[in-house]
C-alpha cells in the first residue's frame, strides 16, 4: 500500500471525529489532529484503534504516542505495514 492510499484511508478514519466539516476540508499532512482538526483527545485512541482495524496492524504505545499529526500517523502506519 503506498503512502497516498494510506493517507486517503486515514483521512476517512479521522473524518467522524472532526467536529466541524470545514476543519476536515482543510486537512493536510501537516495538520495536527488535536490542535488543527480539534479532535477531542479522548477520541485520539479511537483513531488509533480504527487504524489498527482498517490496516490490520497493531500499534504499540511507543508508536501511538507519535500519532499527533496526519503525517506522523501515516509514517507510523507505513512503517508497520512494511515490517
Amino acid at each position, binding site marked *: 500500500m503506498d503512502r497516498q492510499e494510506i493517507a486517503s484511508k486515514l483521512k476517512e478514519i479521522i473524518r*467522524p471525529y472532526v467536529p466541524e466539516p470545514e476543519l476536515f476540508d482543510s486537512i493536510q499532512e501537516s495538520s495536527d489532529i488535536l490542535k488543527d482538526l480539534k479532535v477531542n*483527545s*479522548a*477520541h*485520539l*485512541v*479511537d483513531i*488509533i*484503534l480504527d487504524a489498527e482495524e482498517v490496516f490490520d496492524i497493531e500499534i504499540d*504505545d511507543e508508536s*501511538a*504516542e*507519535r*500519532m*499527533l499529526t496526519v503525517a506522523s500517523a501515516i509514517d507510523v502506519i507505513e512503517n508497520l505495514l512494511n515490517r
Partner: protein
Amino acid sequence: MIGCDLAEIPDTGRRSRLNPRRLLKLYSKSEIQLINSSNCPLKIEALLWSFKESAYKAHSNPPYRFQPKMINMEEFDVSSLSGKIRYLNEVFDVNLLYSNEEIVFSSTRKEGYDLNWYLGDPKSWQQIMRYDFGGSKIEVEYVKRKPHVSVNNHRLFMSKSSINSLSGFVWLTE
C-alpha cells in the same frame, strides 16, 4: 501548577468507552480494575480520563505526546473520588469537583503547590468566558478580574484560579 478537565459520561461514540482494547490503550491494569469493579464504570472511566488530562495540563513541562499510560493513578479513594496521580517526575492531588449525569469536572494541583499563585495575563481570560462541552455549558464570570465558574448554571465555589498554557482555564477550590 494547577489544572482542570471536564469529560462526558454518556457512552455515545461508535465504540464503547469500555471496549477492552480501548481500555488497554489508555489505562494501567489497576486503573482498568477500578473501572470494571465500579457500579458506575462509565463515570469512573470519565473521571480517570479527566484526571489524566488535568494532570497533563498541570505538569510544569509536559511533552507533546499521546502517552496516557504514562499518567498513573497512584492512590484512589472511591468514597471521595479523589487521589494522587503521577506524571513523569511530578505528583498531583486530584479530585472530583462536580458531576451530574452528563459530565465529570475534575481539578488537579501539584503536591505542595501554593494556591496563592496566579499565573497568566488576566486580559487573556476574556477569551474563555464561555465553553460548551457535550451539551453542558460552562460560563466564566469575572468578578474583580477573577473568574467564577458555573456548569449548567450550577455555581462552583472558586477562589483561586489560573490560566494554563493550553488556552484553557484552570482553577482550584480552596
